[in-house]
């Protein structure tokens, strides 16, 4: 199942394509960046997507979702990737949303997810404390305090953390940094006393926050999953988020490649189109293959989730290992083949190269995921 689009998904793709072409050409992302917009995306457009059912497309209907699965979400994310739309799918839906969906009590889900689905509320996942992806390298502590916890620590690279209403936070209730056991996932309201959120801008024009928890009180009811057992929850969340991110990356690959191909067919040097040079033709053919292969692995990973297969983790790591490698290749070749003009901020291809580098390193690079894949395969 799932290597080709169903009738419904074909219709969805056409809708999404028209929507993004009309409302969110790449130019919009540049405007948001250049205006130093403090939100970093369009709240209005996000609510429109909520209205179309795309935010909650994987959520159950009970919380305002469409229950259409990751193959459908992938269709929307691919179109996001094509136009570099910076709306908070990764932070709100894939990371924060999934944490709630997989680990949240019915009460918490009912409280938060309908507003997430509609686009009113934004979430984030504050887990990262160092540069390289290492999900269990958590020192932020959550000390037991009567019926709840007191959270102390600092988080970096919290995607869209600067505009999130709830900060899903990974803290340590036992053990020490790097250990799988002893992690607890909590929902912290952004306006809780002791929470400081500072906005950072990223090279791809998106936003991440530096968040400090200074003795922040969190109620025990706001724990997702089990205390001390957050790792299993996080694994499931990261697998889904990784697969979603890969779907977005595939869209960016395809668009960056098509633009590069157009350039090869149009640009003249030495009296001929540069696309007539065999070395460039071969490299373009190789890139095409890399993208097709990545796309296949990502489609398969999406249906692994939708079909409830037991190899979701393996699929997620296979997909991200491939997509990170391809991101490096396509980002580099896209600029190289555009020549000097590709180095200018004015030419949009550079925006793709930056986004692809960010995506390459987010949620684990190719080496990380090949090692993880190897571990899952028993070697």
């Amino acid at each position: 199942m799932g290597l080709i689009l169903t009738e419904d998904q074909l219709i969805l793709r056409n809708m999404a394509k028209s929507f993004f072409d009309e409302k969110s050409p790449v130019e919009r992302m540049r405007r948001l960046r250049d205006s130093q917009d403090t939100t970093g995306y369009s709240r209005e457009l996000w609510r429109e997507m909520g209205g179309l059912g795309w935010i909650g497309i994987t959520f159950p209907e009970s919380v305002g979702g469409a229950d259409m699965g990751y193959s459908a979400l992938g269709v929307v994310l691919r179109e996001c990737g094509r136009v570099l739309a910076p709306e908070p799918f990764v932070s709100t839906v894939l990371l924060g949303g999934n944490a709630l969906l997989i680990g949240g009590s019915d009460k918490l889900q009912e409280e938060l997810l309908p507003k997430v689905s509609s686009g009113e509320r934004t979430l984030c996942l504050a887990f990262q404390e160092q540069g390289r992806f290492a999900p269990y390298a958590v020192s932020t502590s959550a000390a037991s305090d009567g019926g709840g916890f007191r959270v102390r620590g600092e988080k970096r690279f919290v995607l869209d953390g600067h505009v999130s209403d709830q900060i899903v936070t990974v803290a340590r209730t036992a053990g020490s940094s790097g250990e799988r056991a002893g992690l607890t996932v909590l929902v912290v309201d952004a306006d809780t006393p002791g929470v400081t959120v500072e906005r950072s801008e990223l090279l791809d024009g998106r936003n991440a926050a530096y968040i400090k928890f200074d003795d922040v009180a969190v109620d025990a009811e706001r724990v997702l999953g089990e205390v001390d057992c957050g790792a299993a929850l996080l694994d499931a969340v990261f697998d889904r988020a990784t697969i979603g991110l890969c779907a977005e990356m595939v869209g960016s690959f395809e668009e960056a490649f098509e633009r590069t191909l157009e350039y090869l067919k149009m640009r003249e040097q030495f009296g001929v189109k540069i696309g007539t040079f065999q070395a460039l033709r071969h490299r373009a053919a190789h890139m095409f293959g890399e993208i097709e292969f990545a796309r296949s692995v990502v489609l398969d990973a999406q249906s692994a989730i939708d079909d409830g297969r037991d190899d979701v983790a393996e699929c997620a790591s296979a997909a991200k290992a491939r997509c990170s490698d391809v991101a490096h290749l396509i980002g580099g070749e896209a600029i190289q083949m555009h020549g000097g003009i590709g180095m200018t901020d004015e030419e949009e291809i550079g925006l793709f190269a930056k986004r692809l580098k960010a995506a390459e390193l987010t949620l684990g690079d190719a080496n990380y995921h090949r090692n993880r894949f190897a571990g899952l395969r028993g070697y």
Partner: protein
Amino acid sequence: MSSTSIEEFRQEVRSWLEKNLPQELRVGSRKGLPKDSLRKWTEALVSRGWITPEWPTEYGGGGLDRKHAAALKAELKAIRAPMITSFGTMMLGPTLLEFGTDEQKQEFLPQISRHEVVWCQGYSEPGAGSDLASLQTRAVRDGDDYVITGQKIWTTGADKADWIFCLVRTDLAAPKHEGISFILFPMHQPGVEVSPLTLIDGSADFSQVFFDGARAQAKHVVGPVNGGWTIAKRLLQHERTTDGGSEGGITGAMKETLADFVKREVGVENGVLADPQLRQRLAQQEIEAKALKLTMRRAREEARAGQTARDIGSLGKYRWANMVQGEQNLAMLALGTQGLGWSGPGFEDTHLERTRAWLTTRADSIWGGTNEVQLNVIAKRVLEIPE
């Protein structure tokens, strides 16, 4: 036959196999099996027309429709029956069915479905490899015959073949693609000389074939005279599809997965391969194999669904060659100097096999269209970059 339900048919095949396929042949390969058993098994298949299950019964085929034929193949595969395929069944037969005259079909197809005549393929020449259409072997009309002069190379099994299907130039003046004919003639005749070629892996399955006044009957030209290029391309297309579809061929033939092999040679400590670099390489190869398999499957599904499928036959061949060679390169790194043996003590048989396999697979990026040709085709046909 095709009127029985698939399930009934499968049942029938299964009991037939139990009766006709000796236990010792159920190994998934034809290599090194006892000749006597193999001959009997072949006769049994022939009696049902099951060497060529989809061919019409009048030509010795099984007369099965696509679904019944697929069911038969599935059963044969499940019981690991040795496949009895040949250039006749895979290449010439389908070509004759599409382009041959009734007379040609009557003359040649039954021999093939009965596994009586061994065919070889006369395509490449020393000066015409990637650029096949520049072939120079000439066929000159002489009464009811053609007289053939020239040289072929890379002719698989020429030393064992009874007949050859051969590309020859019948019009020297025409543009190179328009003077080629596709012709059939016997190998056992004066003017045909076969000289086996030893390859770097020590094998000698290929030959050079020299024609000096060999004769073919004019009625054995398939398709129009000077219209052979269309047929040749069609046949190559068929060959390319077959290759791209096979998954991790070499590793498969080794009867051990690449992962199991590497784990055994390199060792696993605390569940982790003892060498972190080879661990990465192995993961990369496994992901590559997965991606190739999924991509070929996706292409088939897209084609079936009528969704805009780009032709990825060339991509499949290119990546398949890369993958197979990558696997062998990894195997050599895992073996270290144990992968360098040719013969003698100190090397296990499986290690010696690996050495040869590494060398054999050097050809995978050359035959059936070099990597370079595949990339050219992708750039031109799929990406449509003007030349």
